[in-house]
């Protein structure tokens, strides 16, 4: 009997039973009852919607025509696609185009244009992508780095967003019922170009552009990216379950859960987010059990569900339900990666991502957009920095596992991106892919044979970056296919990439030169300025190149008087410029910038006082980033994180491809937003530092004439 006949027979049988002359058969109970009642409801509802849509279609078309004509009257395009490939290096791209392995990039260059794209100071994603979206220099949008110091405590904190629990709670026995939502403050100021577009009736779909958390209201849809926390409130805390007590690992970004692996069974409990519902606080926990299976596989029993764990494969997203009390549930999602079951059990778990199916924080606009994506495409990573570079750096994951994870995330992003293209016939689609940044950070050592990070490591993934660029070329090809003639396509990166061979511990240098003082006999290696004697400290470094003066009246324990600022800046700048790396026989500092000279706008006072522009190969040392004082001023970088972009910005430009020619010879990242506005016929706001790369009048210009123009003329010096 064919399946078709079975179906027909089943239908006939059901119809027969339903038509039997008794009331009992009119109902088939909950379950099937729901299925049919809700299906009929959905069908009726959808039919009603369809009828309403069709009946109102002429009216809507007319309104759209009028609105659209108004919105798109001066528009030169129907659609703009910005495909962001975070950190894709123009030099490497050009090299591979010359080798002929990037045919789509080459085609795009031939059809339209290819340029290096001036990046921001600092040359890093939070700063650059914020300048991209606002068209402003950091002095106007206030995002100067990943980390900035809290002027009251001097402690480093995230520059882009702050999440605090609701201020008011209702005590109820052992519980504290929150009266309101968590308080989320965005660090970014100014306004993204898609908000301006929306105000003019042009709808945008924005996917995973860094520094878009919390998601702000505008006329379009947006999914947040960088700075979305995990359920623990951190920027990504992974878990490592291991029965190997002899294993020596230095884990600073993960939680190690020791297990006993007896007769192929391990039971344990791990802790997740803080229980903010209980007055006594504490962390929510989940018990679990791992049982060994055959061929090195296992199974995981958690939340009453058994999940197969295949050796060296990621599980699909698994939902974790934490119970804080009062019948409430806090839901997160994770993937597991079984490293081994013999002789020890070693199991990795990703940071607990906010569940997009029921988001605990505003990770999208509208709030339902995250849910829409989850329902139609399956669950996906929501964490800001979702590729777990820390787990590889700390050698919990190996390169294979990291690659697998990164490509899984990339597949999710691609699905979202092409869905957005499918849903947008008019308007802007912007999507940033992070894989280019994360893989280059972790695999750049393979492009530099003498890199210190190569010591003792194999070159199995020597071709990882080449393969990555080829994959991106294929993505560009698919995007070009989806873009029609009336679509302006931009493929861009926010900065380039170079090897990160040596770390320069700025706080160590400041300490050794008397600008930073410590308590006791000397630095103990404490993080977060644990050793610092603020009463005698004139300057300190936080983040990826910023140096802050301990200014009286600004810093809580400031001692530097205003009239000493100029001299102090000069001393530090001159000293750093003169610094020599005796091992590599180079001066690691190319330039030291004075914030008041390179930034403009109302937030310059919040910027680091000095910003160090490093020569490629040298970057801020790991200890210095979070306020530590390392043993050495300059030391080898032996971590997997072997490539970087926090160098002197002119040395690490981004790239810009377009399917149209551009009218300047030196475009900057601040020009992209204004260009999109201009293409849609929307006036570029006066506060923007960038300018259109495709002004209408340029269409008639000759090629020679365009060569004389320069992008973002009003922008800061860089």
């Amino acid at each position, binding site marked *: 009997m064919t399946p078709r006949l079975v179906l027909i027979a089943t239908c006939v049988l059901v119809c027969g039973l339903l038509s039997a002359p008794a009331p009992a058969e009119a109902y*088939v109970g909950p379950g099937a*009852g729901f299925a049919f009642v809700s*299906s009929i409801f959905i069908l009726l509802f959808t039919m009603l919607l369809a009828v309403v849509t069709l009946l109102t279609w002429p009216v809507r078309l007319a309104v759209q025509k009028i609105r659209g004509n108004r919105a798109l009257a001066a528009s030169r395009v129907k659609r703009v696609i910005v495909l962001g490939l975070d950190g894709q290096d123009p030099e490497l791209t050009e090299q591979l185009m010359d080798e002929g392995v990037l045919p789509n990039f080459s085609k795009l260059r031939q059809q339209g244009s290819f340029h290096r794209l001036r990046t921001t100071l600092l040359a890093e994603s939070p700063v650059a992508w914020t300048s991209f979206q606002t068209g402003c220099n950091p002095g106007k949008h206030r995002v100067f780095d990943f980390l900035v110091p809290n002027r009251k405590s001097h402690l480093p904190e995230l520059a882009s967003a702050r999440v605090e629990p609701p201020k008011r709670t209702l005590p109820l026995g052992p519980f504290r019922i929150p009266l309101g939502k968590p308080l989320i403050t965005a660090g970014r100021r100014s306004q993204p170009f898609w908000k301006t577009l929306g105000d003019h009736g042009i709808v945008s779909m924005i996917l995973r552009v860094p520094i878009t958390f919390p998601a702000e209201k505008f006329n379009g849809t947006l999914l947040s990216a960088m700075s979305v926390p995990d359920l623990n409130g951190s920027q990504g805390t992974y878990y490592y379950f291991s029965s190997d007590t002899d294993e020596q690992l230095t884990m600073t970004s993960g939680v190690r859960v020791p297990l006993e692996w007896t007769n192929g069974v391990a039971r344990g409990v791990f802790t997740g987010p803080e229980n903010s519902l209980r007055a006594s606080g504490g962390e929510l926990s989940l018990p679990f059990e791992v049982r060994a299976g055959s061929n090195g596989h296992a199974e995981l029993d958690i939340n009453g569900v058994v999940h197969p764990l295949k050796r060296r494969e990621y599980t699909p997203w698994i939902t974790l339900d934490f119970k804080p009390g009062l019948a409430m549930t806090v839901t997160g999602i994770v993937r597991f990666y079984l490293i081994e079951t013999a002789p020890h059990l070693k199991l990795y778990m990703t940071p607990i991502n906010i569940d997009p199916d029921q988001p605990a924080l505003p990770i999208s606009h509208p709030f339902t957009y995250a849910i829409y994506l989850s329902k139609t495409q399956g669950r996906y990573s929501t964490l800001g920095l979702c590729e777990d570079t820390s787990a590889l750096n700390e050698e919990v994951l190996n390169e294979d596992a990291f690659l697998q994870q990164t490509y899984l995330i990339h597949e999710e992003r691609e699905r979202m991106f092409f869905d957005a293209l499918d849903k947008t016939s008019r308007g802007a689609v912007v999507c940033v892919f992070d894989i280019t940044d994360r893989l280059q950070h972790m695999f750049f050592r393979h492009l530099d044979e003498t890199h210190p990070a190569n010591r003792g490591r194999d070159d199995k993934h020597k071709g990882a970056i080449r393969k990555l660029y080829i994959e991106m070329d294929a993505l560009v090809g698919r995007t070009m296919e989806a873009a029609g003639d009336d679509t302006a396509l931009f493929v861009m990166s926010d900065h380039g990439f170079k090897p990160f061979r040596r770390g320069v511990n700025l706080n160590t240098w400041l300490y050794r030169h008397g600008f930073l003082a410590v308590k006791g006999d000397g630095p103990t290696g404490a993080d977060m300025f644990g050793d610092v004697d603020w009463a005698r400290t004139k300057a300190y470094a936080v983040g990826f190149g910023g140096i802050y003066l301990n200014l009286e009246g600004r810093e809580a324990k400031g001692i530097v008087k205003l009239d000493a600022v100029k001299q102090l800046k000069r001393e530090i700048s001159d000293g750093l410029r003169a610094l020599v790396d005796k091992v590599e026989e180079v001066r690691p500092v190319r330039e030291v910038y004075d914030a008041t000279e390179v930034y403009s706008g109302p937030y310059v006072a919040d910027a680091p006082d000095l910003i160090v522009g490093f020569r490629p190969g040298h970057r801020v040392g790991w200890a210095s980033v979070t306020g530590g004082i390392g043993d050495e001023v300059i030391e080898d970088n032996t971590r997997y994180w072997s490539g970087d972009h926090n160098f002197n910005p002119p040395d690490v430009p981004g790239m810009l491809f377009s399917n149209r020619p551009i009218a300047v010879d030196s475009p900057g990242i601040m020009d992209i937003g204004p260009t999109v506005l201009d293409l849609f016929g929307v006036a570029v706001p006066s506060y923007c530092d960038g300018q259109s790369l495709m002004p209408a009048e340029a269409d008639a210009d000759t090629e020679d004439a365009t060569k004389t123009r320069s992008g973002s003329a009003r922008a800061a010096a860089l």
Partner: protein
Amino acid sequence: MGALVNLINSVLTRIFDVICWPFRALPPIWALGVISFASGIFLVWLFGKTSDQKRVREVRDRIRGNLIGVRLFQHEIGVVLSLQGKIFGDTFRFMGLALVPLLIMLVPVLLIMTQLQLRFDVRPLEVGEPVLVKALVREASTLDGTITLEVPEGVTVETPPVKIRSTREIVWRLRVDRPGDHALVVRVGDEVLEKRIVAGRGWGPAAYLRSGHTLDTLLYPGEPPIAADHPLEAVEVAYPPQDLSLLGIRVNWLIGFLILSMAFGFAFKGVLGVEV
């Protein structure tokens, strides 16, 4: 087949008697509520076990997602219509996925319904309340012979029988003066058939039809089926309808069961981890 159905009915009737026993002093809506609760949970659990939950979840999620999409992409008419098409397709796909569980669930639902009908569709007679008793003969010619109704003490036949040839029926009007479960005997020539009649015991099982058809035996439990060679095809006592009310509102037992079981099932589907 008839014997098997009779056996199942007997067992189920006993089980439901036990379930209803604690509620006999309360209005019948209480018992209906408890049975609806238990049925709701059981049937949702059964749906979970008999359906492809992974695919059901996928399809339901897609429907929900695309419904959100219709709202999100209002400005794109083409997209909205395309999403509506997808919702249509997925709804039929979902109904397809529910077909097999539906077939399986028909069996327990039918059995539960018959027991509910036995208890909540009609009510036993009140003492002194008149009632019609109707016998259906297999052959109209049987009506030409003698058909008598013998009643026990405490039951009075109020009217002589009325024969209706066109429908092969003979009808009496009775009155029950003594509470209890009485046996009426319909005599057709040498053949006799017993039919129970209940009066004055509050609410409880009241089988209004005793029949020779297997399907009727299934649908109207409470008494054994009539033998196939018996001249009578069915005997029916026209009990008055059961008066079910909730918060002063009259409720049909079927509607009440439908709403209550769905509500309980819906409330507990999350606990049971079942997608419906």
